[in-house]
């Protein structure tokens, strides 16, 4: 069975099952509403998840823990600069992406110049980013311009605009990974850094580009999330730290690197939203909900990895 050997299949199956179980409770009425909400909120997890996936693909020890702080800083500075004025959406986007570029360069500089392990470098850098976000605006929530807020919460052809953005990014990442020489370089670097270097791949360039990409993705996600929810908050990125890693692992990418999986990230992002909705809808208390979420995640990861080993 070729289909069953696809590691991304399991996250999509799990998402579909969670959807069916929740929709059953609504006797069909709320199915569309639920799917729409899942696509809206899943998009943010998918965008940061795609970035985290690229970093994890770089091989053991590579992970970006500064995603929440980068999101918060980019969103805070962008919304402050826009100051709720109409027509400033692209200025805000530019500032958010500039923050992302800066954060990515800074992260890579710490890793390359100081030879810090990425976990330490990005964690330390995230404390700095978070502090700058606090210092720059002291946690005040500034509303996004109306046009931008309408875009972030709006829909096109029946799907949320943020989901279109997430989908477009996923396609771009997939094409780069599967069809371009950059993608081959990234996978080769993740599979064996030393061999890749000896084969003439510019591994440091690949690593730099990857750490910059994840920061850009985080900045974009922060900018969209703040526009979607009515302003940047200092704790807005918090849940995306573990979320970004979870969607990569559930999506069937190898945590050891060198093997990435774009469709799985989207399936896992939808699943992470739907599983919480399902347990909430059935009235599970917080403790039970966390235990069940953990158990289900472990089950999916086992299912996905066993299939991969056999294949």
């Amino acid at each position, binding site marked *: 069975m070729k289909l069953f050997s696809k590691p991304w299949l399991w996250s999509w199956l799990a998402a579909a099952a969670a959807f069916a179980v929740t929709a059953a409770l609504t006797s069909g009425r709320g199915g569309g509403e639920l799917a729409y909400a899942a696509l809206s909120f899943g998009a943010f997890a998918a965008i940061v998840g795609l970035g985290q996936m690229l970093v994890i693909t770089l091989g053991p020890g590579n992970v970006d823990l500064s995603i929440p702080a980068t999101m918060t800083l980019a969103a805070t500075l962008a919304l402050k600069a826009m100051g709720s004025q109409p027509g400033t959406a692209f200025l805000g986007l530019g500032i958010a992406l500039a923050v992302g570029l800066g954060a990515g360069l800074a992260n890579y500089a710490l890793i390359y110049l100081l030879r810090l392990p990425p976990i330490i470098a990005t964690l330390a850098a995230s404390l700095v980013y978070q502090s700058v976000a606090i210092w720059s605006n*002291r*946690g*005040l*929530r*500034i509303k996004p311009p109306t046009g931008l807020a309408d875009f972030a919460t709006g829909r096109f052809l029946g799907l949320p605009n943020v989901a279109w953005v997430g989908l477009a990014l996923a396609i771009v990442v997939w094409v780069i990974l599967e069809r371009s020489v950059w993608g081959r370089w990234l996978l080769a670097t993740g599979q064996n850094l030393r061999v890749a270097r000896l084969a003439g791949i510019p591994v440091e360039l690949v690593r730099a580009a990857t750490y910059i990409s994840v920061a850009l993705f985080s900045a974009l996600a922060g900018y969209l999330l703040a526009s979607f929810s009515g302003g940047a908050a*200092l704790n807005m990125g918090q849940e995306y730290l573990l979320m970004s890693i979870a969607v990569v692992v559930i999506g069937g990418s190898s945590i050891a690197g060198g093997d990435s999986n774009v469709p799985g990230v989207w399936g896992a992002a939808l699943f992470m*939203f739907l599983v*919480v909705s399902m347990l909430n809808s059935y009235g599970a208390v917080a403790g039970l909900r966390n235990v069940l979420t953990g158990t289900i995640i472990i089950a999916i990861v086992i299912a996905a990895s066993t299939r991969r080993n056999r294949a």
Partner: protein
Amino acid sequence: MTISKMLLGAASLAMVAGLAQAESHMADTSGKRIALSNNYAGNSWRQAMLQTFEEIGAQAVADGKVAAADAYTTSENQATEQAAQIQNMILQGYDAIVLNAASPTALNGAVKEACDAGLVVVSFDGIVTEPCAWRIAVDFAAMGKEEVDYLATRLPDGGNLLEIRGLAGVFVDDEISKGIHEGVAEHDQFEIVGSVHGDWAQDVAQKAVAGILPSLPDIVGVVTQGGDGYGAAQAFNAAGRDTPLIVLGNRQDELTWWAEQRDANGYETLSLSIAPGVASLAFWVSQQILAGAEVPKDLTVPFLKITQDTLDDALATTPEGSVANVTYTLEDAQKVIADAG
């Protein structure tokens, strides 16, 4: 009249007289140094709290009431880190520590060390159970119950409620939720048909509500814990549902939304939360203790309530993107102490 009753009467008379003269008998605190030990700064409420403390502290230093009022915040919201911070404060020779604690019990050892070293420790908001410390607590359960009491006056026919809780596993979340459930038990025309955790954050609440809404019947009211009402309103709006009566939590974006709805369709609700200025109350209480005032170990601070009538005033005084606040004065602190005595 028995002897004991006479003695009691005399004692209370003496106490009243003592209170009246307290001001003149008080020790001078102009040489005393007070530190704020704070465990978290990552949301608008905590930022407003720190700002209030800094303002009131700077003023008190300028007025010669105390020698120093410094604020310190730990970076990781860890009890171990805060315990180390308290130990540093002891070594730095502070006379009093005003404490918003990461844990009600995990800091007890460090707090005891501070007491043994002769420091006054006043905990507030996040209080500690160590007996030598003072506690300025909010009756969170009463706050939860008041929400349901209010809904009962507005919706006498009752109906389905959605509960938005805070951060799972935190004492405050359990207390407010307990009060809400007590209220629902009393007003049995209401039923809580759904409960989600919004982590006191608009975006998290919005996400959780959007996920549970499709499976819920018609909702007449939403009971909240603060910082989550605007997100809930957004989720109802996105799902194309009628906006229910959402109890709000004093955030400026919630109040702005309320005023817009009121102007558009006469929307009425209630907003309540603890004012971040409770830090200023804790500051003055510690100053009073240093001055030699008799202060009971457990004090209660009222929550800040905004009604339809006070909405415009509250909006006018709340900075954009912040949270409604009151700054407590020395007189307020003396009144809270007298009420508890």
